[in-house]
C-alpha cells in the first residue's frame, strides 16, 4: 500500500487539496498548543515554558514509531518516503543562522504563519523578514554555491549513517526524549515564573 499518492492509490490531482487539509490540521494543532505566541515559544530557551521541546519531541517520537510500525506491517513503504537530503556544511551553517534568527524573532516560519493568522503584528513583520532574507540569499548565492552543494551524503537516515539497527536507534531517541521531558519539568519548577 505504501504512500498513497506516489502509488496512485489516490489520484495525484488530489495532492493539493490534501495538502490544504493537512495544513489545516497542522496549523490548528500548532496554534492550539500555543505556538502562536513568541514569548511562549521562547520559554524553551529561558526555562519558563518548555512547550516547544515537549510538543516537538513527542511529535517526533509519535511519528517515527507510527511510520516504522506501518512500514513493518507492510502498509507503508519506507523506501518511498522523501528523506530530507544531507548536505553536511550547509545543514550546520544554515542551522546556526536560523538559531540566531530564532533567538531574535522568536518564531520559525510555521509558527509565524499561525501567529499571523491570529493577528500578531510582530509575526507579520517576521514573515516579511523571511521574504527579505530569502531574497538576500538569491543575491549572495553565487558566492555560497560551493558551500551550499558540498558534502552531499544523499538522502540518508541517521541509523543508516552509523550502520546501526534502526529500531535500536529509535529506542535511544525515545529514551533521550523522556530524559529531556523529565529535565525540562525539573528546570521549569526552579525557574522564576514569567507572565506572558
Amino acid at each position, binding site marked *: 500500500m505504501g504512500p*498513497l*499518492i*506516489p502509488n496512485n492509490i489516490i489520484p495525484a490531482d488530489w495532492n*493539493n487539496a490534501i*495538502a*490544504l487539509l*493537512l495544513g*489545516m490540521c*497542522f*496549523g*490548528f494543532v*500548532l*496554534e492550539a498548543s500555543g505556538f502562536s505566541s513568541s514569548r511562549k515559544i*521562547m520559554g524553551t*530557551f*529561558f526555562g519558563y515554558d*518548555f512547550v516547544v521541546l515537549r*510538543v516537538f519531541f*513527542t511529535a517526533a517520537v*509519535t*511519528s517515527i514509531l507510527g511510520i516504522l510500525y506501518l512500514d513493518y506491517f507492510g502498509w507503508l513503504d519506507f523506501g518511498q*518516503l*522523501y528523506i*530530507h537530503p544531507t548536505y553536511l556544511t*550547509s545543514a550546520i*551553517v*544554515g*542551522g*546556526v*543562522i*536560523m*538559531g*540566531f534568527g*530564532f*533567538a*531574535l*524573532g*522568536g518564531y*520559525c*516560519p*510555521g509558527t509565524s*504563519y*499561525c501567529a*499571523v*493568522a*491570529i*493577528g*500578531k*503584528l*510582530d509575526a507579520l513583520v*517576521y514573515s516579511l*523578514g*523571511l*521574504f*527579505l*532574507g530569502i531574497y538576500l540569499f538569491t543575491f549572495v548565492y553565487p558566492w555560497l554555491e560551493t558551500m*551550499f552543494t558540498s558534502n552531499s551524503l544523499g538522502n540518508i*537516515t*541517521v*541509523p543508516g549513517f552509523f550502520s546501526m539497527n534502526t529500531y535500536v536507534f529509535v529506542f535511544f531517541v525515545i529514551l533521550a526524549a523522556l530524559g529531556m521531558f523529565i529535565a525540562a519539568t525539573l528546570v521549569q519548577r526552579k525557574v522564576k515564573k514569567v507572565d506572558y
Partner: protein
Amino acid sequence: MTEKIKKDHSKTYLNPYFGGVLLGIVLILTFYITGRGLGASGAAKSTVVTTIQSVAPEYAKESGYVSQFISDDEHPMNNWLVFEVIGVFAGAFLSGILYGRLKPKVEHSPKITSRKRLIVALLGGMLFGFGSQVARGCTSGAALSGMAVLSLGGFITMMGIFGSAYIFSWTFRKLWI
C-alpha cells in the same frame, strides 16, 4: 435568566504532550498519504520566487538560485507547500476563533518597546529566511519532518537550530526576560 459568563480561554492551550501526539499523527498521515513531510519555508521561497519572476524576470532567469525553481510549464506557486501553508493559516485561524485568541497586537516583553520588537522581529525573520535556504528547510520541514523519517540532515539541522538558538537567546536575553 442566568447570564452566561463567557469564559476566557485565551490562555488555554492543549497539553503539550497531547499536542505533540496530535502533531505526530498529522505527520504520519501526511507521510502515509503523500510520501513527504510538512514544511513551511518552502512556501515563503515560492512566494519570493514568484515575486521576483513577475517583477524582474531577467534577474530570475540569470540567478543561479531562482532559476532552479522556475519552469515554463508550472507556476512556482502551484506547489504542494503553498497549499499546505494556506491550510496552516486557515487552521490556526480556526483555532484562534475557538480559543478566542484573535486579537491584533504586537507581542513583546514588557522590558522592550513595541518598536524595538518589530525591528528585531524583522531582523530575526531575515536571518531565519536566509538560513532556511542554506539548510534547505526550517524547523517544520527539515527538523520535524526530517526527524520523522530519521533523516541525518534533519537531525543535524535541528541540533544546529536549537543549539545556536540557546546560545543566541541567552546573549540577547534582554529582549525576552
